[in-house]
């Protein structure tokens, strides 16, 4: 299944959840925000939310800033 993550093409198995996707990228920061096709997915839905074909996904992090 083809998806785009942070502007880069990626392939994942169908049924991949947000949690699985983040663990593939070794991202475990509590400061992470995930947006799928322009909509932020609440953290409590990361387990159940399955990635779909052609999804545009942004994995965003809160960082130090002024």
């Amino acid at each position: 299944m083809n998806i785009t993550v942070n502007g880069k093409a990626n392939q994942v198995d169908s049924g991949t959840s947000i949690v699985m996707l983040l663990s593939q990228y070794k991202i475990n920061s509590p400061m992470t925000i995930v947006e799928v096709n322009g909509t932020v997915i609440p953290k409590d839905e990361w387990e159940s939310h399955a990635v779909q074909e052609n999804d545009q996904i942004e994995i965003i992090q809160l960082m130090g800033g002024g």
Partner: protein
Amino acid sequence: MSDNLVIAGRTFSSRLMVGTGKFSSAQVMKEAVEASGAEIVTVALRRVDLDAPSDNMLAALDMDKYLVLANTSGARDAKEAVRLAKIARDGGLPPWVKIEVTPDPRTLLPDPVETLKAAEELVKAGFTVLPYMPADPILAKHLEEVGCATVMPLGSMIGSGMGIRTRDAIEIIIDNARVPVVVDAGLGLPSHAAEAMEMGADAVLANTALAIARDPKQIAEGFKLATIAGRMGYLSGPGAASREARASSPLTGFIR
């Protein structure tokens, strides 16, 4: 003496806000933020680098102790700023935003037109809006009129440490304002913070000055004290400067 800062109905005892960027480590950042006494801390949003996800500096901070104010840094226009603000809110941060629209990477000066557009839209969307802005008194009025909770005129360019180069304009903004005025950007030394507060600013925001100092914790405390000192100077109703001496010792009874 109770002299609190009130922004959008929320009360703060500290008049110093600090940014969390550019510190050498999470521990150094945490210590500096704590030493500053700040209750409002700013953060940025960025894409995770998928090839090298890094430890998050912010994890060191006890986020419940602070009002975490997302900025829209990186936004080049109103649309991008609005998107960032909504991502931060939907991602679980409070619906407060520091608007930063800086299309020119060399100067990072705020775009007045796009800042006003973003402010109007975000106020309508229910945000408490704190816009980083050029030190322009007319723009400050417009931002206030569309419902911004503060105005945040720049002292000088972001990260420049040049201090308050916009003094005359900021004085007019302070005179006119019916919302708190937060002097943001360019404050490089505690004395710059004191100067802004003595002018009657309601608060100041510093980041780079803390992050790049040899001893961030110490300068953070310096900023804290200077902000308090400047505020006390302002509240005390200082006498005006004079071109002539005014003797402080009696001018009679000289022993000659």
